[in-house]
């Protein structure tokens, strides 16, 4: 157990070193050095760079003159809000669609769910997002086109999570601000979650179909348990562990998708900030943004690895 944990941490550490080498290289592109390095040797400067990172000094943007870390933290809540909402959709809808398909395998329901997810799987999200806007916002008019909240609401940023700020903030709009913010969240979240949701649905289906072939399921059936009970109580519990791992892996897909989604929906998160920095050749900000996003993906993967290690004894191999 300890050894396999160690292995996870060592792998993560190697990834982190690789990551910081890359971001350090990016920071060297900046016309003004990111920090006042003492040494002239690039090799030593790298370690000084690491030192600054640990002191939470990520440099200042050479375009806007603002602190990179605080700029990141300013944009991150918007991203996290969208990400969590999308993740919720991925799990709830992905798993339910998978269950429906598995229960009806071979029927038209199964085929249409699988067909739809295949389409979802292969949909470029920048196009999908525009299509959703065209239909739901411009044609039906039920969702706003972009942004986090209508402009007649002026919500002071406190936690910078719009849903939270509309609830805790000192304003006179009541709950309508909250629902307005929620309404703004739906289209971007659907756009962002589409691909991972399709993957999730297909994975759930294949995991369930696999499990439903086992002897113990047949036993359960012969005991006269209802199909619903078999799926929800017996099969799903066993499928859950692999689904959790797969679900965790969707985070990296969501992370890449979020940059495009934020651009489309004018969502003021990290992705938009990164794109703007790239367009302005703002290397300190690019460095910081990539560092933070990749760092989170790595940490999250470590987390998932540990959980699946606990759940699945087979993965606890000793060092070869």
């Amino acid at each position: 157990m300890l050894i396999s944990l160690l292995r996870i941490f060592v792998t993560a550490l190697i990834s982190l070193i690789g990551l910081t080498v890359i971001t350090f290289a990016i920071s060297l592109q900046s016309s003004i050095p990111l920090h006042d390095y003492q040494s002239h040797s690039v090799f030593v400067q790298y370690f000084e760079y690491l030192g600054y990172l640990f002191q939470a000094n990520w440099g200042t943007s050479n375009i806007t003159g603002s602190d990179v870390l605080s700029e990141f933290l300013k944009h991150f809540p918007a991203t996290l809000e969208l990400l969590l909402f999308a993740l919720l959709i991925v799990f709830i809808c992905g798993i339910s669609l998978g269950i429906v398909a598995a229960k009806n395998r071979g029927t038209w329901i199964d085929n249409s769910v699988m067909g739809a997810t295949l389409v979802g799987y292969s949909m470029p999200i920048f196009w999908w997002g525009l299509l959703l806007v065209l239909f739901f916002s411009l044609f039906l008019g039920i969702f706003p086109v972009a942004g986090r909240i209508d402009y007649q609401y002026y919500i002071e940023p406190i936690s910078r999570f719009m849903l939270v700020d509309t609830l805790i903030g000192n304003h006179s709009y009541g709950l309508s601000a909250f629902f307005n913010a929620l309404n703004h969240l739906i289209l971007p979240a659907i756009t962002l979650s589409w691909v991972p949701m399709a993957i999730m649905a297909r994975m759930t289906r294949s995991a369930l179909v696999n499990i439903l072939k086992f002897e113990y399921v047949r036993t359960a059936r012969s005991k006269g348990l209802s199909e619903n009970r078999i799926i929800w109580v017996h099969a799903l519990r066993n499928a859950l562990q692999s689904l959790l791992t797969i679900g965790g892996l969707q985070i990296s897909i969501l992370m890449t998708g979020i940059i495009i989604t934020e651009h489309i929906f004018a969502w003021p998160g990290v992705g938009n900030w990164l794109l703007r920095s790239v367009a302005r050749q703002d290397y300190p900000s690019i460095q910081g943004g990539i560092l933070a996003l990749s760092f989170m993906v790595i940490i999250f993967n470590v987390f998932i690895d540990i959980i699946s290690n606990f759940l699945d004894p087979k993965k606890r191999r000793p060092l070869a």
Partner: protein
Amino acid sequence: MSFVSEKKSSHTKLLLLSFLACLIGCQPSISVDSKTGSNLLVYCSEGSPVSLNPQTNTSGTTVDATAPTLFNQLLDYIPGTTELRPSIATEWSINEKGTIYRFTLRDDIAFHSNEHFSPSRHLNADDVIFSYNRQRLANHPLHNLNGNSYPYFNGQGLAKLIKRIEKTGQYQVEIELTRPESPFLSILATPFLPIQSKEYADTLMKKNQLELYDKNPIGTGPFQYLAYEADSYLRFKRFDKHFAFQSSVEHLVYSITPDPAMRFARFSAGECDIMRYPLPVHNKLAAQDNTIETIQTPALNVAYWGFNTQKPPLNEPKVRQALNFAVNRKAIARAVYDNQAILAEGPLGPSSWAYAISQDKIIYNPEKARQLLQEAGYGEGFNLDIWAMPVQRAYNPNARKMAEMIQQDLLEIGITSNIVSYQWGTFLNRVAAGQHQTVLLGWSADNADPDNFLTPLLSCAASNNGSNYSRWCHTEFDNIILKARQESDIEKRKLYYQQAQKILHFEKPWLPIAHTPNNLLIKNTVKDVNLSPLGTINFEGVTIISKEDAF
């Protein structure tokens, strides 16, 4: 449902449920009477401003965010035109030699206030001197604030041009120049030279919070700063004590939407009242909708095909003339500009007061081009590089396509060509270094003076430092534009510029291609929004009327 078995119906229920789950919260939104009220104006802008002080950044986005709202200059342009009018300065005089400018300021101009500062006095000469000296003097306490630089001030060489600035009375300022410079007033009227509060700087300095000076700006403009969230919005509140204008709009919000398709979608859905930088296709859609108005101003910009006159065979005027006859610009106007630009006859467009209507316009005549090439001794043709700028600009929406069209046209007169492109930064550096043979580029003026086109683009001084990409240096032309720059009588200047344009017409360091108008889409409920020929939007006196009144 009778034909559906019990089992099936539970499946259908599950299916429905999971779809419902997919559309969590899909219920129609809490309805808000209208997306934007009568006292709220939402402007869909194209990006986040780099800074809230236009002294420190010349990008159009920064200027649009600050110039029409926060600040005023000594003088400015009459909305929608390039004519000067008094603003902070009520009157001014220039001495005989054209080197000393005396300004009399209004005495009733109030500054904005915020949680860090409430002004105790009106704007006076100290603020004017403070605002210019901050940019001019390297030892000024605010000069290096937040690592700022002053690209416009330095680009115009104002630090060298201005010899001294002096207060000659509470509301009197005198500026002495090292040499006569007739575009000087036009320069002072640009949005890059706002007058800011000295008292605010003093207050912040005492509190040791000077870094807030440009982040929480204080100005004198018709709207005051409320909040800015990068990538999201900029909020302004009407400034009730503005000295000249009073808008009926209480809140002004810049909704930052970088993607043009989404910007148009937001505009169509009523999430904003004004849309910046519509694409040609949006203009077409807008023309079919009677609730949308298009504001169009003839623009002070030009797209051109520049010839590197230091490289043979382009050093030959005959060859350059031939290339001028060889290109079908009408086809370019149709294919690249969607017929939304006017063909250029020279660097200056018809909106400039110095525009000279030439007798012989540039026409497409491949026959004549072949003949000229023959005369120049290149009858058998040659090979040419066309460098096409890799980015989209208002004056050139698609340089690549333009290059391909020119390539086809050149084949007809026996010239084969290659299209060259690099990443934008590299492209500009290489062109500045003169590595190109011909280049498709353009220019947007930053002040309305005709000199703003001729000196940076075609003077000898600019032929080596970069922005004269034709590297064309013509002594007679250079003398004429220098004389014009030092002359203050506008009629005499017009004559000089006519001579200069005549020389250009013969020498052809470029093929001028097009002037593209500036566009803005607005809802017909919004009145009195202007767009200057320099491309800056103007909100002073903007009003919103009810939908019923709009028809």
